[in-house]
């Protein structure tokens, strides 16, 4: 494989004068299941292989993707990519350059206790069925239960024109579980995700019975929840919501491509923008975490990147192109979903560092507010407006957590909100998730419980 990919890169550099060329080949096997209630909708198995070619010619990018390892097809694809890049370069004002990266020659093997590729389809169906049966059996008001399961195993090959050559195993196990309940005309919905790069042993840590019950319990509890009043309130956010806040509200703004695109963090590096209690990391090194890997899709080793320390912005997440523009080091955040797309800056495991408050201390001073425990969706805008939807929340009245509330969301301006965090818990939890930025990336996020003095809460009553 190395020889083939080197040969293709050489065509780009020698025949078309590319400044840089990289070839990523992938061979992947996937197993997918969807079970609705006690019905297996389909058991699915997929095989994919293909090559992504990226070249930098006269300061412009050319990219080609083909589902083939055939030399002639790859030669024609790389020639196409070079010609198109050359054409686009005619309109360039600022040619693209890349920050230096270490030349790497390495081979990375995954070492799961239980390799999903070795588990029989029957066993995977059994695990998924247990999740659904537990959920449906929890309460007769549970009306539907769906589990989507995916495992992916395979190998990525990376070769660039600077002499790097990396062979890296890929292994993901993922599931999404959703349940709905109906009683007296009230509909509720609850979901959870599970994801790991460790192996199928993730189901030993989170047994299917526990997963099914967790989702069902929330859907039932939401039946008696009330719609809440919109307005500004103090809130306590659980680790699951804090994770999404760190990822959506701050993380995306700290992606250097979005900072360059006009995001509000571009000129804030080294400046204090939030309360002393705020320290965030984006970390690709946590073993088994859904966002972890050793090398990114530009061949740069992953790292634990400090984004903000005690309220001061310390750095951004970079690929080689943005690192050059900011005179920074690449941080190993360039990720491509597969060989069909180009690597772009993506988060890994993004979290807030815990401090010293207990949950009781966070809640006790709040006269009228909310405790938001679990999220459903979140989104951010470059102007710093964020929104996080809530699937599980409770009223706080006179320092006590009370009645559940339904379908709320919180919103605000990220920088203002970071200044309003006035209590950070000592607990810590990470949750796996998926992030959409044109492509899907497997990520992880989390943190401790926190208290925010004031945030806009959306509700319809």
């Amino acid at each position: 494989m190395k020889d083939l990919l080197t040969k293709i890169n050489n065509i780009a550099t020698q025949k078309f004068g590319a400044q840089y060329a990289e070839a990523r080949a992938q061979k992947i096997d996937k197993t997918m299941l969807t079970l609705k209630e006690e019905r297996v909708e389909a058991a699915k198995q997929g095989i994919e292989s293909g090559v992504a070619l990226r070249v930098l010619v006269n300061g412009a990018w050319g990219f080609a993707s083909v589902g083939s390892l055939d030399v002639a097809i790859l030669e024609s694809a790389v020639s196409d990519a070079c010609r198109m890049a050359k054409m686009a370069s005619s309109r360039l004002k600022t040619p693209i350059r890349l920050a230096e990266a270490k030349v790497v020659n390495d081979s990375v093997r995954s070492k799961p206790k239980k390799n999903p590729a070795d588990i029989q389809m029957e066993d995977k169906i059994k695990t998924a069925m247990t999740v659904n049966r537990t959920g449906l059996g929890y309460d007769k008001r549970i009306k539907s239960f769906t589990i989507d399961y995916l495992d992916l195993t395979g190998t990525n090959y990376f070769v660039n024109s600077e002499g790097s050559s990396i062979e890296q195993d890929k292994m993901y196990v993922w599931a999404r579980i959703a349940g709905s309940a109906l009683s007296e005309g009230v509909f509720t919905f609850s979901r959870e995700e599970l994801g790991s790069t460790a192996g199928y042993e993730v189901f030993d840590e989170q047994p299917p019975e526990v997963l099914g019950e967790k989702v069902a319990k929330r859907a039932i509890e939401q039946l008696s929840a009330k719609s809440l009043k919109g307005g500004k309130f103090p809130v306590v956010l659980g680790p699951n919501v804090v994770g999404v806040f760190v990822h959506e509200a701050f993380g995306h703004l700290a992606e250097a491509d979005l900072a360059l695109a006009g995001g509000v963090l571009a000129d804030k590096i080294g400046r204090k923008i939030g309360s002393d209690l705020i320290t965030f990391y984006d970390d690709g090194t946590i073993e088994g975490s859904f966002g972890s890997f050793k090398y990114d899709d530009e061949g740069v080793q992953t790292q634990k990147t400090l984004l903000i320390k005690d309220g001061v912005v310390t750095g951004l997440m970079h690929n080689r192109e943005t690192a050059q523009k900011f005179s920074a080091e690449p941080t190993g955040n360039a990720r491509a979903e597969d060989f069909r797309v180009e690597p772009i800056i993506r988060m890994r495991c993004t979290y807030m560092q815990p401090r010293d408050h207990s949950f009781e201390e966070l809640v006790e001073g709040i006269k009228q507010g909310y405790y938001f425990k679990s999220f459903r969706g979140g989104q951010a805008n470059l102007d710093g407006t964020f929104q996080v939807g809530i699937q599980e929340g409770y009223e706080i009245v006179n320092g006590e957590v009370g009645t559940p509330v339904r379908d709320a969301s919180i919103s605000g301006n990220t920088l203002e909100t970071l200044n309003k965090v006035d209590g950070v818990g000592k607990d810590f939890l990470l949750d796996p998730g998926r992030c959409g930025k044109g492509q899907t990336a497997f990520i992880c996020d989390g943190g401790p419980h926190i208290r925010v003095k004031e945030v806009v809460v959306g509700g319809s009553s």
Partner: protein
Amino acid sequence: MAVLKKDVMLSLAENTVAKALKKGTLEVEAYVYEGQATNIGIEIGQVSKTNRIIDRGLGIRVAVNKAVGFAYTNVIDDTDAVDSAIANALSAAKASKPDPDWNGLPQKKSYAKLEKTFDDKIVELESEELVDVASAMLDAASQVDKRVFPIEGGVGSAYISNAIANSNGISGFDKGTVIECSIATLAKENDTVTPVCFEFNASRSYEVDPAWVGKEAAKLAISALKTKSVETKSTTLILTQFALQDLFAYTLINAVRGDSVQRNQSPFKGKIGQRIASENLTIYDDGLFPGGLRTWAFDGEGVPHQKTAVIEKGVLRNFLYDNYSAKKEGKDSTGNAGRAGYLSTPSIDTTNFHILPGNRTGEEMLKEINDGLIVYYLQGAHSSNPVSGEFSVVATPAWKIKKGEITHCSRGVMLAGNIFEVLKNVSLVGNNERQMGQLISPWVQVENVRVIGK
């Protein structure tokens, strides 16, 4: 571009069915997909990237004693890879469990002749010309005002074809083209950054107006620079197509899917023939709409596309079905089996979700509003409750309408409510129809929506 010919695609589908039948299964379906796309990308104010993507593949669905298995491969020029995909589909079916509600694959029906879904000019486009289109769009945006930053966007042309065959004799081929140009801009002044303002053109024929796209996106961004807060209250809203598409995708569309209804996930269960929305609202799912972005001869399992009345003058008429969910009720599929290329099994999706236009222009709609908001983009629509239809989202941004005029922009405005209440409160539908993804719609005016100001 060199594309796979109709007979190559069809014979791969048909031969795969024949081979699988010999391996002992009675029910098999083969779906062959080819997509070729060329994109010219704009990043941080310049045309700086290009890509060319060729994606082909084969998806095989089999049923063995009512247990369904599926396998796919993107290696289709290699007999061994196709054979092992057939074997994988069979082994998956054998590992799976019988489904008593499985009533077979669809039967053969004839397909309609389509209009405006394929344009030779798009297939033959040279990438030089696409670079010109991208540059024209970029220049138009930059020329509006020097406070505008075009941040990303591009021009893409695509050719898509698919072939399907099944053991009931279905054999179909269809091809289509799309061209799209889009730009995202924001405006910056001192310390103020506006939300991202986006415009686009998308068409099945080579008909795009890049200068209009660039100019409109830039004008919106500039108008979002000066902001004032709005008060918390219930108010009149004009929802533009951007907002409608986002909101409907995560709420209403779930509620009209036949499988959601069967699984008690839709408040519309048992309400066919009943009034569920304002009489101003008529919605068709029209898979044959001329030039529609989702117009194809057949759906993901070879069932002909059709035009289905969903809501007529506020009365619920039909749900949307694929073959499985339709047969479960003894009905016929409405041709709504969606499919993510060759990578997935079919699942129910809209084709072109068409909100029928009224007779008021956008300008007339604005003029008649004494106090309200117009909303372009929403943030967080995907966090809506897909079952109950409750939403709590941010308008990024909203523009205030006072005495018939747009007076100022407001940031961080939250909108909260229930989509099924919104449908009842539609007071007016405009005539300014446009296509956006699966939606074909004019502006829609809604009364009494809860707005939480900042």
